[in-house]
């Protein structure tokens, strides 16, 4: 079974600053996908960024980028130039040969003015 661990229950960042959210996972598979999802109070799960394990290049989406370390099974999310609208729960997730997403417990991100 695959497990996803987010060791930071809560993080805080000042507006315009940079923050990094951590995620580690455990798997014996070689081909899989990793995700970061954002869940605001509205509960809508929004895909922030996706990384294919076979790609060595780290994924980037505007202010969001990941640091994917396959050997270390680490997948951190960096948010640059943080905005008030970035405040939300962030979930790291994995899908491999199966089809069900495996989620971590989440990190609550607070953004202060």
């Amino acid at each position, binding site marked *: 079974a695959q497990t*996803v661990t987010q060791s930071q229950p809560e993080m805080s960042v000042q507006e315009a600053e940079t923050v990094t959210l951590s995620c580690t996972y455990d798997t014996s598979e070689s081909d899989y*996908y990793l*995700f970061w999802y954002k869940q605001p109070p*509205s*509960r*809508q*799960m*929004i*895909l922030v960024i*996706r990384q*294919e394990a076979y790609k060595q290049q780290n994924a980037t989406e505007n202010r969001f980028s990941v640091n994917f370390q396959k050997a270390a099974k680490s997948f951190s999310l960096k948010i640059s130039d943080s905005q008030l609208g970035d405040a939300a729960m962030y*979930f790291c*997730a994995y*899908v491999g040969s*199966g*089809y*069900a*997403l*495996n*989620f*971590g*417990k*989440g990190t609550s991100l607070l953004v202060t003015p």
Partner: protein
Amino acid sequence: GAGVSQSPRYKVAKRGQDVALRCDPISGHVSLFWYQQALGQGPEFLTYFQNEAQLDKSGLPSDRFFAERPEGSVSTLKIQRTQQEDSAVYLCASSRPGQYYEQYFGPGTRLTVT
């Protein structure tokens, strides 16, 4: 195009009541997933449909939980004789066939059992 829709957004049930939660996936998405998200936790897989076939129901926590998708589009998650531990947000997601890496989520139904 419309996204995944779920109804109701909120449901309060008295313990022992039956509830039905609806999910309307994105048109053309043959794969449909239900997840349960307890307070302060990440979502956990409940069940998976491909068209009308329920291919995996291994995540359903008890035989009080039942899901169906009779015509391969709208799905209903039914919980019989609700218990307090059933209180959670129930999320539905859909994807194109084989594209499990691209699941689109609905807004969820928050179920509170009193």
